[in-house]
């Protein structure tokens, strides 16, 4: 969390925590809920009341895979609003405490003997998310210039990957081998936080080169790792192809992959860091995917204060839950219980142009202008300023003395650009808009030239 240098000569730093927290298993809850984005009940191969096995593919042919993480009976199929405010298809399963594994998953003994396509198919079938958006057809695979296995955590509130590194040094070589083979990357790198250098020296990393990464946010974010230690850009799938060249996989995820492929099991569990208060109470819980957040609270015997927040995935980029029924998903890294006094509220103030946001932005955006253009809907300008390059790290809003919700403004602009909305509102229109007259802070002197040329012609 925030480390505000007393003599603020440097911008405030947000450091990762170097604490070690042993991984504690959480028992399988009575009910779990699995979420599936952008799907309808007709995509499912199961109905209410049916019994499912652990590892069973619940999706209709060609739609999936959508893997059950428990054995039990389907209680309900419905819609669920995820913590990111998107609608998900949710399937609720009443669990049996014992797993009976779906026999269609096969164990793979030796990764080096197996073809990459087979590995990709197996990883995909087991339900791993790190590669699944890219693997739509295991035979179609983009060129991957760099693979980074990261022992860095995504957020200062998470210590899950670090702990995996501490606990599983003997298996890292295998994980590197598996992922290098699966992704067919030309170069493989293991990113280790600086403070664990002592452990890293004694470990066999297989074919991977090791880089020591300063334990300062946002170095652990995949985008930054890809930029600094990979080949530049994260690999993204699009409808028509791919963009980018680097894949970043968390170490915890990579090790789960090894275990499940070797044992013929699906992706079952996730290490979730639980923390509470300003500094305290870091615990790592190993939970079944689909476990509701309330189980973690029960396990830690913590009750959020009235008006507090339950934050999934960290205080910088994460989401505040609106209910404790929100399940842990394959991408959940941490759960932070925040008391009202720790939080702050955004304000609807105008930018004072202090430039602190520009100073901290890890992708070097002109956030002072970007925030204003995005706020006022001048999206063509936002685009030329690089709104799409923003990685939503949250640092600009963290330092802004005016407490502007900068990330929201920029994300809004990004979404508008993506959906092609940048055309209707441009600088020319804004100049004609009389709503705020000459006081419109988005328009600065000398910035009034013809900007129509800048607006992108094609939509993505």
């Amino acid at each position: 969390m925030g480390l505000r240098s007393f003599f603020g000569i440097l911008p405030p730093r947000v450091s990762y925590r170097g604490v070690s927290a042993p991984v504690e298993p959480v028992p399988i809850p009575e009910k779990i809920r699995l979420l599936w984005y952008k799907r309808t009940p007709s995509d499912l191969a199961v109905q209410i009341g049916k019994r499912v096995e652990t590892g069973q593919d619940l999706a209709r042919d060609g739609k999936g895979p959508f893997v059950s993480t428990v054995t039990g009976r389907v209680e309900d199929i419905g819609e669920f609003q995820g913590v990111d405010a998107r609608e998900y298809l949710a399937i609720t399963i009443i669990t049996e405490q014992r797993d009976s594994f779906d026999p269609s998953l096969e164990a793979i003994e030796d990764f080096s003997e197996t073809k990459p396509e087979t590995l990709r198919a197996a990883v995909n079938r087991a339900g791993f998310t790190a590669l699944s958006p890219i693997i739509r057809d295991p035979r179609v695979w983009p060129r991957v210039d760099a693979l980074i296995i990261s022992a860095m955590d995504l957020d200062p509130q998470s210590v899950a990957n670090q702990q995996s590194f501490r606990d599983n040094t003997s298996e890292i070589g295998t994980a590197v081998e598996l992922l290098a083979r699966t992704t067919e990357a030309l170069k493989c790198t293991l990113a280790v936080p600086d403070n664990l250098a002592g452990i890293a020296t004694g470990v066999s990393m297989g074919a991977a080169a090791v880089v020591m990464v300063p334990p300062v946010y946002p170095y652990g974010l995949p985008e930054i790792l890809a930029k600094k230690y990979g080949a530049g850009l994260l690999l993204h799938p699009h409808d028509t192809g791919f963009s980018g060249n680097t894949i970043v996989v968390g170490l915890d995820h990579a090790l789960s992959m090894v275990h499940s492929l070797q044992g013929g099991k699906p992706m079952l569990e996730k290490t979730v860091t639980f923390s509470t208060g300003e500094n305290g109470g870091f615990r790592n819980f190993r939970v079944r995917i689909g476990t509701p957040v309330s189980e973690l609270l029960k396990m830690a015997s913590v009750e959020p204060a009235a008006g507090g927040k339950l934050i999934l995935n960290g205080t910088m980029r994460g989401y505040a839950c609106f209910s404790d029924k929100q399940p842990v998903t394959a991408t959940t890294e941490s759960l932070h219980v925040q008391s009202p006094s720790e939080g702050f509220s955004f304000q609807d103030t105008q930018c004072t142009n202090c430039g602190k946001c520009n100073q901290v932005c890890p992708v070097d955006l002109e956030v002072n202008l970007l925030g204003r253009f995005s706020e006022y809907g001048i999206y063509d300008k936002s685009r030329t300023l690089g709104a799409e390059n923003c990685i939503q790290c949250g640092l600009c809003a963290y330092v802004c003395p005016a407490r502007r919700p900068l990330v929201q403004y920029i994300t809004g602009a990004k979404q508008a650009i993506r959906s092609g909305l940048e055309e209707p509102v441009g600088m020319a229109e804004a100049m004609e808009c009389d709503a705020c007259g000459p006081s419109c802070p988005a328009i600065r002197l000398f910035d009034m030239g013809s900007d129509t040329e800048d607006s992108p012609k094609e939509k993505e």
Partner: protein
Amino acid sequence: MKTLDLTVSPAPHIHCGARITGVAYNFFLALLPTVAFGVYYYGFDAIRVIGASIASAMIAEAVFQYIMKKPITIADGSAAVSGLLLALILPASVPLYLVVVANFVGIIIAKQCFGGLGASPLNPVLVSWAIIRVTNTWAGFLDFDLTLINYDTGFLLQYPLAVLKAEGSAGLAHFSLLDLFLGRQGGGIGASAIIWLLAGGLYLVVRGMIRWEIPCSFLLGVIVVAGIFWLGNSKTYANPMFHILAGNVMIGAFFLSTDNSSAPVNRWGMVVFGFGCGAMTVVLRAWSVYPDGVVFACLLMSLFTPLFDKLRAKQVLPQPVYPITPATISGTVEERSGQ
């Protein structure tokens, strides 16, 4: 089951704690020794000007915002800081109505009409001062040698820049650099307290309230350009150290040119801006009719701020998606890397 009372808000969920008011508080703290200096030497008159200036700046802002039905933001302290800074570059003898008029002009025309804090293309303090300076009937009030004649400060109360303008560098023999540094010179209420301004300015830099690039390059600009003049003709033009220690340069470098909304925010922009302010100051001192050029130099450079802010790397926009081609569909790593 009991439902929890949870707050939902967008990321990030923590904040470093900085506030807009923090900037104003730190400015006040940094200027405290300077104010004490002014009050010590000019007594009640200094208090009078400073008080009137702060009050009128805040009232100007409040009145305008009330009339325009905008939220009244005088509590953020920015208007008060502007008022204080204006007072510090005025002589202690200035009539109060002038202070009030200047503040109303500066705050309303230069700041509020452009959208308030952060949106003004020119620093309101500088505009206020310039209004007095360029108005024929008022300009006399800014003549330090005439207006300060009645004060007994225990040192020679002479405005060094006016001496320089009138007599060339030959007339400066009785100004030792140490005296200038300690503030034993005629000038604004606070602008001559060089040592205290330097201390306050360094405090602000260290606390991150102003960026170091602007003051450093400002002073560098003064030294370089004054050095060129001095090397060319040391009879007419004063040496660079004199330029740094006389007049408004110190207050300009740390407090006037660093105004957030009228200065660039990107590193190289700030460097060029600061250097330009410093260079322009010396040029105006040497060639214009005004003894000091800091205010006009800063105003002039502020006009180019949006241009200076473009001195930075362009963002690389996302590349187009590359389609799935047969080359990417099959083949092993070895085959592909051999392509």
